[in-house]
């Protein structure tokens, strides 16, 4: 998506990216970026929170108007879970001793299924 933003900018169209995967967007490099530190899925605000969605969308518009150079990132002030904001971060794509074996097995299973599908495709000719 950031590559598309860059292409539009190169063609003379101003853009702003709204997102929650800060490192992915900033490594690719975009002109304007509204970063909200939320779990992936709701970069424009929490479900049913119209006021927050309006504030985050408004920040994107502010950036369109006011950013004067590329790589302008603004982080919105919102917190996903004020009581335990590290829980979702640690849970997502977790790898530790409790699931390491299960992940390895899941990977083996997926590769076996892919190999079967490929062989079946060959047999069908």
């Amino acid at each position, binding site marked *: *998506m950031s590559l*598309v933003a860059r292409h539009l900018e190169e063609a003379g169209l101003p853009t702003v*990216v709204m997102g929650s995967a800060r*490192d992915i967007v900033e490594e*690719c490099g975009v002109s304007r970026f509204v970063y909200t530190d939320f779990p*992936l*899925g709701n970069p424009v605000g929490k479900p049913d929170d119209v006021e927050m969605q309006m504030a985050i969308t408004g920040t994107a518009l502010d950036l369109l108007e006011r950013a004067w150079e590329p790589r302008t990132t603004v982080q919105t002030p919102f917190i996903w879970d004020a009581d335990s904001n590290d829980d979702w971060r640690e849970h*997502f794509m977790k790898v530790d001793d409790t699931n390491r074996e299960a992940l390895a097995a899941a*990977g083996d299973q997926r590769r076996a299924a892919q190999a079967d599908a490929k062989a079946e495709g060959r047999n069908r000719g």
Partner: protein
Amino acid sequence: MAADRRTHRSHVSYIDKSRNYYGAQGYPQAYQWSYNHDVPFTPLTKPLNECRIGLVTTSFFERKVDKAAVAGSATKEPYAARCDDALGGLYNKDLFWDKDTTHTDDLDTYLPINRLRELAEQGRIGSLAERFYGVPTDYSHRRTSRRDAPQILEFAQEDELDAVILVPL
């Protein structure tokens, strides 16, 4: 809020997480994320309240409604569709997001069509374009840069957009 101290950055690095996660599944070759030193920049040249704004999503459009109104046929190709036809929600199940923590039942949490229409009514922007665009997440930088991005630019030019908001899920 009281000051805090940490040994690690607080925001999640999805580049680090996904490398470790797929590595643990036995995929040794890490994904090569896009990196650029130089970044293009185009300033907005007219007042925002005279601008037509467009939206781009990574979500899929379920082509149940009026297929003739949708440009782009295959599911993994960029598309343009009417904002009105997105109001019932888009298809996100195949995308990479935190399905355990949240949901995407509220469209405006990832594609703020209603919020931008309200902002147009308030006079903050000129208008929201009648169409929005979709770009599938593609592992190939080449396909994204050479096929998808030029197609989105073409849609934007057809709709005479002044600025574009892109929202990856």
